[in-house]
């Protein structure tokens, strides 16, 4: 059933729709009194007398309007009001409890309904559980956080006066540092800087250039264990092989015997020595 009604008529395209159907609908479906309904316009009466489709439509609309008007003309019996009110008051006096089909709540609406203990617990169990979970979480987090703030042993030296400061003598600042002594040390260093025979800048640069190659082996030497020179093959390929003492080898493998020892000494037995940088 469609809620919206198209007053223009059927929607089928092949239907023969009178072009004055809408006019008839508008004229007869309106809320009119009986006199208005009887006194239709002469043009509408003429069209209804000639168009059977619109006449059928008009008969239906007039029939519905007449039926509604006849329903509205029905008057209830005089005793009905009194009977209905008496029955109704009887029901209201009994606390709103109906004697008919349905029943309504009979407690007064002004008084709040008090739940039982079980209903109260059930109703408040969820918020209580949520609040307890949040409190537990906050407690655990707070306990861990406060534990992380405690001073750990051996983690940091206690805060005290600076090295060189003598808090027991002399003029002290806010942090207990002997300010006069520190001032004297700074002045001595300033005198040393000003009165020293400063070397020229070029000489300092030459010294740095000369010291630079020596610095590299120093660093390598600190990384490597103290041992003999490395295998030339490993050195050639850049392999940082573990150091093997020279005397610990029982015999070199054939492919690693480069014959340098024999080249150096042809008379004696072969000496298995690794070539060193100095030999090359």
């Amino acid at each position: 059933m469609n809620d919206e009604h198209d007053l223009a008529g059927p929607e089928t395209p092949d239907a023969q729709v009178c072009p004055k159907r809408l006019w008839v609908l508008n004229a007869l479906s309106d809320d009119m009194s009986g006199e208005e309904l009887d006194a239709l316009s002469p043009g509408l009466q003429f069209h209804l007398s000639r168009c059977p489709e619109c006449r059928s439509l008009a008969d239906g609309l007039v029939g519905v309007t007449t039926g509604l008007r006849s329903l509205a003309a029905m008057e209830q019996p005089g005793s009905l009001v009194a009977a209905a009110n008496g029955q109704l008051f009887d029901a209201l006096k009994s606390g709103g409890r109906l004697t008919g089909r349905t029943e309504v709540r009979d407690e007064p609406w002004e008084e709040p309904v008090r739940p039982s203990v079980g209903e109260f617990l059930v109703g408040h169990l969820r918020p209580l559980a949520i609040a307890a979970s949040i409190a537990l979480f906050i407690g655990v987090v707070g306990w861990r956080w406060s534990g992380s703030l405690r001073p750990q042993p051996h983690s940091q030296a206690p805060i005290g006066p600076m090295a060189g400061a003598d808090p027991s003598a002399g003029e002290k600042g806010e942090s207990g540092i002997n300010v006069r002594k520190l001032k004297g040390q700074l002045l001595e260093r300033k005198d040393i800087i000003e009165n020293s025979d400063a070397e020229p800048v070029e000489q300092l640069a030459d010294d740095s250039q000369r010291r630079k190659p020596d610095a590299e082996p120093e660093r390598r030497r600190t990384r490597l264990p103290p041992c003999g020179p490395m295998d030339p093959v490993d050195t050639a390929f850049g392999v940082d092989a573990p150091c093997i003492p020279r005397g610990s080898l029982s015999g070199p493998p054939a492919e690693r015997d480069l014959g340098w020892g024999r080249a150096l000494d042809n008379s004696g037995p072969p000496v298995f020595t690794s070539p060193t940088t100095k030999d090359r």
Partner: protein
Amino acid sequence: MAPANPSQDRMSIAEVAVSATFQDAFERSTPEVRDQRHAWVTRLIERDGPGILRMLWRLLGREADVLDAYQDCFCKLAAFPKPQDLKYAKAYAYKAASNIAIELIRSRKRRAVHWEAVVAEKGGPACETAPPEVASPANSGRLREAIAELPTHLRQVVLLRDLAQRPYEEVGRMLGIDPATARVYRRHAVVKLAELMGVGGGRS
């Protein structure tokens, strides 16, 4: 016939039925009815009860059904938790009464259909289905069923305008629509009713 004891709290329906006016029954029902929680309901009954009862009578046409619908309507109002929650008590009362009446018409129709099936199966006479409608015009039963089948917004306008005979301004105020809209709805309802009754007004 006046009751033997005027201070009697509970009166029978027959005793109340003989009382002529609403005021008489209202005065006899005190003090239980006139307490605070039912005061606004009694005022509503006093003011709009006759109009609602008239609408119900025109829609239902049977005294027993009218009394049941009337009682249900106001007892639901009395059971309302807070009267201030009602924006428009009069509109609520009319809507509640019309809804109860429409449900009665629908249940009556369902019962008639099932009763016919039972009679056809048992083979008995189909005589005592329902009490006849009192002073109803011809074909009014079909028209009432068609009203019950209308869409809600159209049905409410027809009930308030044609059966309760309220002016369009009041119909629009009670339904929360413009009076012109109520008039258009009523026109659509007439066309739809003609279609439902199959008397040539519809698309069929």
